[in-house]
């Protein structure tokens, strides 16, 4: 199963990005192979429509869960119809590595 985590930078020690649509990087973690892939977010500075565009990017990687600090209004209905689970962590100090370790 693949999980997407929003990250502020491109290393595992970077912190969770609190925004979903305009986060700096998406980390796609595969729970079976334990591999990670960093995808820079092209919608980082988009004025509008960053959420749906980011959903498309993440959904193309076949993820089943998305972990972020917050999800915008437009995204929830799209993710619900795609059957992707949203996980909200209200702790901006958590690093990507700490979150990945929770899966093992």
């Amino acid at each position, binding site marked *: 199963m693949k999980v997407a985590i929003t990250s502020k930078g491109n290393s595992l020690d970077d912190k969770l990005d609190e925004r979903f649509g305009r986060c700096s990087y998406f980390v796609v973690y595969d729970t079976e192979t334990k591999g990670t892939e960093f995808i820079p977010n092209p919608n980082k500075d988009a004025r509008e429509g960053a959420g749906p565009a980011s959903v498309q990017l993440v959904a193309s990687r076949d993820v089943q869960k998305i*972990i972020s600090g*917050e999800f915008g209004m437009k995204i929830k209905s799209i993710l*619900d119809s795609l059957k992707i689970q949203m996980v909200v*962590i*209200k702790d901006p100090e958590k690093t990507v590595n700490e979150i990945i370790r929770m*899966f093992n």
Partner: protein
Amino acid sequence: MSPRPLRLRKISNPPVISGLKPYGTVKNSVKTETVFLHLEEYEALRLCDHEMLNHTQAASMMAVSRPTLTRIYSRARRKIAEALVIGKQIIIEGGKIYFDSEWYSCEICGCYFNNPDKQVKKILCPLCKSQNTISADIDNLK
């Protein structure tokens, strides 16, 4: 003057089928005729007649007023009756709707998550796998 825009109806469970077809001795001319049941009408019917909620409860589930829910529900019944009596097929599609799922929070790690797969009844925390999860209203957090 144009009418007041419709409020979006909240659908918490999408239908498992996209329609129903009649069988048996139906005149061929009628066989191809279709009744389009809107998703909001399906949801109203599901809440009122399957989950056995009253109209006030069902209305709050769909985020519309009670009279609106009753109107949607009566339209659903009229369409189902028409399909049943005349022998038309039913196709479930359309309607002013959005999909919504419920939110839960984990008491161990404090995260919030939703449950997109309604078939899963036992809800585990996606991060720490604990069973200590409670239903949460995420709108109160923001």
